[in-house]
């Protein structure tokens, strides 16, 4: 069988068709991988919508979709068919071509990222680019362009406001997202996604224990980047109808929907790769050593999917727990909390690495095992690093709480309080009370 047999079985079959070895290696295999990944991700996205509905239902003591198939499992297919057959409406004064192409930009930018994400070892990764993480950040931020174009071209005030809000939000959270990853990159010493996973494997540790602050920052800014609740200001239902996709209908609307969920999956996959050890899991590589190579790859792939799904669950969980932020609160969190704490995190991680390196060989303490592939630490070195990570979260939070303490005076809440009259005789205007 394919799972238990050697990898060359399919390769030999392809060779018999008369294609040259280079063609198979650089054209046929990538095409097969792309097909697999696109299918897998599309299914995953479809069932993420189903799970979102189910989990939201459970959190509200409902059952959710139950009618189509057992436990409503065929609901995404039914929804897709419905949306395919719906009218594709374009408003009269819309900018037709931009309106036409905006959804494709959103979907493409979300799906291109999957080309560099390592779903597993060996054949489960399409392309191992040495700037993988940079590509992920660059391409996923093109998705913002789609939202802005959609909002602008719709010729609708709600859509335009949604587009404006999304651009402001993305600009402020993109920075925090990029900066929060740098701490982990100091340990990995590579931007290649497979390389980051391999670095965690050779250290036999997940970077979430070195970088809890970085993980939290990445998760929060990732949620904000994807316009998910509690940061879903670009499509705030109660204020903007549906935000940037107010005027969209049918398949074009569902493309935006797909792009949103695919972007969520992207952030979950990146968080898994960088912080949760990618496809590594204890004892799984025993399959490799016992000769079941393909089974090992498939199990690793499942491990990756499960890890990313846990992060997706956190997404749903937060969405159905927290209310939406006000716009000034959103900017507050972005600029006053996330970006400074990402910077502090970088400094602290650098300091931790410096301390570990300085302690090595001092009074017989060995913290560094080898230096051949990045920083391989001994148990005591890991302990110091983990302690720095956990203490760093609280140091960062305390420092920022201290700095931001006075800035709350400029909040609307306090301003509203000041306007209220206390101990002022009636008939006098509120302005006098200020002096």
């Amino acid at each position, binding site marked *: 069988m394919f799972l238990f047999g050697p990898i060359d079985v399919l390769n030999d079959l392809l060779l018999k068709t008369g294609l040259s070895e280079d063609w198979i290696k650089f054209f046929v295999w990538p095409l097969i991988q792309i097909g697999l990944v696109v299918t897998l991700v599309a299914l995953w996205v479809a069932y993420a919508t189903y799970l979102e509905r189910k*989990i939201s*239902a*459970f*959190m*509200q*003591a*409902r*059952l959710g979709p*139950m*009618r189509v198939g057992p436990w409503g499992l065929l609901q995404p297919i039914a929804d897709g068919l419905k949306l395919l057959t719906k009218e594709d409406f374009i408003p009269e004064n819309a900018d037709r071509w931009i309106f036409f192409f905006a959804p494709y930009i959103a979907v493409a930018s979300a799906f291109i990222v999957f080309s560099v994400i390592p779903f597993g070892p060996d054949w489960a990764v399409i392309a191992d680019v040495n700037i993988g993480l940079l590509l992920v950040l660059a391409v996923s931020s093109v998705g913002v362009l789609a939202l802005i174009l959609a909002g602008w071209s719709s010729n609708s005030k709600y859509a335009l406001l949604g587009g404006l809000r999304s651009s402001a939000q993305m600009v402020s959270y993109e920075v925090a997202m990029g900066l929060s990853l740098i701490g982990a990159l100091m340990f990995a010493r590579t931007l290649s996604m497979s390389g980051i996973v391999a670095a965690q494997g050779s250290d036999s540790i997940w970077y979430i224990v070195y970088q809890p602050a970085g993980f939290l920052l990445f998760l929060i800014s990732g949620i904000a980047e994807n316009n998910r609740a509690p940061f879903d200001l670009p499509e705030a239902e109660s204020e903007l109808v549906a935000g940037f996709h107010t005027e969209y209908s049918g398949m074009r609307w569902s493309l935006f929907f797909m792009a949103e969920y695919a972007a969520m999956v992207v952030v979950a996959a990146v968080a898994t790769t960088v912080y949760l050890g990618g496809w590594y899991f204890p004892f799984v590589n025993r399959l490799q050593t016992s000769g079941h190579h393909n089974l090992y790859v498939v199990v690793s792939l499942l491990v990756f999917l499960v890890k990313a799904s846990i992060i997706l669950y956190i997404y749903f*969980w*937060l969405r*159905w*727990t*927290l209310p939406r932020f006000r716009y000034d609160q959103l900017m507050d969190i972005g600029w006053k909390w996330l970006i400074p704490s990402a910077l502090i995190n970088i400094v602290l991680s650098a300091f931790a690495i410096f301390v570990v390196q300085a302690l090595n060989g001092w009074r017989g303490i060995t913290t560094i095992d080898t230096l051949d592939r990045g920083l391989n630490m001994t148990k005591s070195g890991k302990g110091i690093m983990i302690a720095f990570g956990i203490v760093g979260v609280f140091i960062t*939070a*305390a420092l920022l*709480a201290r700095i931001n303490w006075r800035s709350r005076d400029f909040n609307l809440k*306090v301003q509203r*309080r*000041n306007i*209220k*009259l*206390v*101990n*002022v005789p009636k008939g006098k205007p509120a302005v006098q*009370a200020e002096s």
Partner: protein
Amino acid sequence: MPLVKTPKPTFAQKLKRFFMIDLIRGMGLTLKYNVGALTDKDAVAGKGIYTEQYPKVRPDVAPRFHGAPRLNMDPETHDTLCIACNLCAIACPEDCIDVIPMDVEIVVAGKPRRKKVLDEFIFDTSRCMFCALCQEACPTSCLELTQDFELATYSRAGFVWNREMLEQGRETVKYTS
């Protein structure tokens, strides 16, 4: 000078805010409901799902609920109980009932007589407001508003019920799963 006395947070409140205790408690609450729904157990009422599973489980309507109309029949002879007296049509505030009688020849005590009997009964449910005044006016308890509530049809013409539909009832799909 602050105009409003804003209560200064105590140290415990500051700690609570710093460690985001309220956020964690809120997350715990939603998680509790989620797990409760999956295991169908909940600390509050002993069940995880509170909603009514409508097509699967038929809801219990209120005892005074008025729904689809029905013309009752004599349970033994299966003749209609309607005597075509037209009282229901007169009572109806929406004027949605049409009673169409016909005369039949019968023999009473050896003499031929003519009797008014029901030929056709038209009931327009699209105009009906389910006040049940017709039910109260009926002297023979023939016309009755039942508790059946599934009255949707695909066309306007489908809302007009004739005598056969009123006597037999309309067939609706009853889901069991």
